[in-house]
């Protein structure tokens, strides 16, 4: 009966009415998997007034897009989204269904897999196909990054997982690609939600939300005073990044709590993390050691942050950062 399940699906993410770029990263993973298996790659798009954006998913690698465009789906809700997805999965039977490990992906997929009684692998950083067994091979870090586990779902379908944002680059957009856009319907019972979104309270941050940022320029007590955070904002602006902070800097009111990185703040996984005047306490490392690349600037050659740094600059941030900004501007 597993043979009835064919094809690779990705779940597109819509935020504030627009397709979020993590959706294109998923399509890059999905394209590899679908080509290896020799099956079509389908993107699923749920939202309100989103149909006109569906061609973007084709441009980024999908062969077809299943769209459920309905006012009830204007905002993400665990129940209406999972019920609608369950209907689509039961109708079309994909063998693989992947979503981003974002707050909505990490909410809807656990509800959906429990409903479908299949397997779900969390926060994968690598995906492949075991061609002999025709199985999805899912690799994920666990236990604070101390272990990498390879996980399979041999018997149940679809094989489901969430994928860590920024674990793959989107394919370059190809405007000559063609594909099918399929308008799907869901029953009213699936589209309805018991939840009501009352309000969205945005954070007042520079740049992208920290969890989405490709580059984070973070400051600690070594920045000496709050006004010096303007340097970090300028650098972040030049690198297309966002500003983060240690708890000490937040406690001193140099930065808002929403920018705190670490055990009692946010866990971030940017491509590049620049730690400026941050000592590298374990509670801080807990939030940023999964960054791809770490540059640290600190006057203390023994600062613990240097143990997780790819590049350790022993020096005064108030000299190094202005000099770097100067070079980037020229």
């Amino acid at each position: 009966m597993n043979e009835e399940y064919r094809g690779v699906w990705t779940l597109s993410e819509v935020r504030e009415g627009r397709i979020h770029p993590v959706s294109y990263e998923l399509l890059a993973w999905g394209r590899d998997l679908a080509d290896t298996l020799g099956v079509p790659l389908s993107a699923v798009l749920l939202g309100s007034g989103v149909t006109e954006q569906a061609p973007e998913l084709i441009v980024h690698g999908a062969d077809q897009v299943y769209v459920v465009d309905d006012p009830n789906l204007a905002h993400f809700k665990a129940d209406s989204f999972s019920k609608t997805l369950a209907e689509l999965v039961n109708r079309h039977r994909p063998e693989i269904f992947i979503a981003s490990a974002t707050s909505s992906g990490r909410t809807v997929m656990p509800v959906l897999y429990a409903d479908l009684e299949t397997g779900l692998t969390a926060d994968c950083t690598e995906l492949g196909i075991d061609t002999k067994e025709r199985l999805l091979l899912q690799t994920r870090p666990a236990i604070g990054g101390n272990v990498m586990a390879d996980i399979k779902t041999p018997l149940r379908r679809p094989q489901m997982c969430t994928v860590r944002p920024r674990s793959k680059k989107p394919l370059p957009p190809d405007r000559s690609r063609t594909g099918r856009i399929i308008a799907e319907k869901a029953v009213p019972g699936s589209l309805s939600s018991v939840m009501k979104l009352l309000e969205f309270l945005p954070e007042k941050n520079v740049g992208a939300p920290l969890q989405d940022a490709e580059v984070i320029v973070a400051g600690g007590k070594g920045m000496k005073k709050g006004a010096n955070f303007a340097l970090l904002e300028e650098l972040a602006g030049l690198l297309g990044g966002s500003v983060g902070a240690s708890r000490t800097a937040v406690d001193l009111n140099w930065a808002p709590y929403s920018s705190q990185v670490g055990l009692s703040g946010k866990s971030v996984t940017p491509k590049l993390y620049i730690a400026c005047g941050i000592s590298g306490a374990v509670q801080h490392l807990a939030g940023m050691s999964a960054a791809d690349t770490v540059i640290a600037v600190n006057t203390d050659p023994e600062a613990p942050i240097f143990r997780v740094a790819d590049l350790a600059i022993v020096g005064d941030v108030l000299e190094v950062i202005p000099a770097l900004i100067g070079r980037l501007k020229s």
Partner: protein
Amino acid sequence: MRIGVLVKQVPATENVRIDEETGTMVREGVEAELNPLDLHAVEEAVRLKDRLGEGTEITVISMGPPQAQKAVRAAIAMGCDRGLLLSDRRFAGSDTLATARTLAAGVQKAGGFDLLLSGERATDGETGQVGPAVGQILGLSVLTFVSAVESAAKGSLVVRRAVEGGHERVEAPLPAMLSVVKEINTPRLCTLGGKIRAKKTEIPVLGADDLPIPPELLGLPGSPTKVVKVSYPQITRSGKKVAAADSLNGAVEEILSVLRGRGIV
């Protein structure tokens, strides 16, 4: 109001081992503690009880080896009223779905709750899937990444959810399942009185035969995911050290070459 809290016992040390044969964690002989993120779920339950007053009762539920009763007692010491341990060799090797099924059956045995709380994720398995899956199996309103419970009364609640770029305020009917993030509160330390009460509290234990789940849906056989291989990556950072005092320009050049190498400039 009846409140339930799910707590997991996790290895306290970093030297966790995985059984290469079964791909599951070796728990024997490893020092264990209550999952640090679950302390926030317990704390929120106790605060809700303080707020709602008379008639609110908190039950802590854990699935794990017999030693996991320690985690249950730690939660009772913080102010929970009762505990329940689900323990049986046949639960061993459960993935998140089998774990969620077992916990959901335990919740039903305990009589069900208006509000069920879990941590955001366990520090060992780190999937964050168990809470929402239990909620779905029991047909509860599922609310994840909860950073504040604004109100909980008259069959409905209002919570804040921490999402990318801000917070959502969401209203949902009870019964509900909430997985909470660490910013929700600062957990209290338990008092001596609490510890004594926890020590004296009897913790009932239920096994596979006490739950209405067919054996093929429990433990390793009931787990759709299989860990087929584990490896221990060394977090290798090149750790090149450059002194800006020697040459400020040199240091800036080093940074620029990393930025170029990573395609950032």
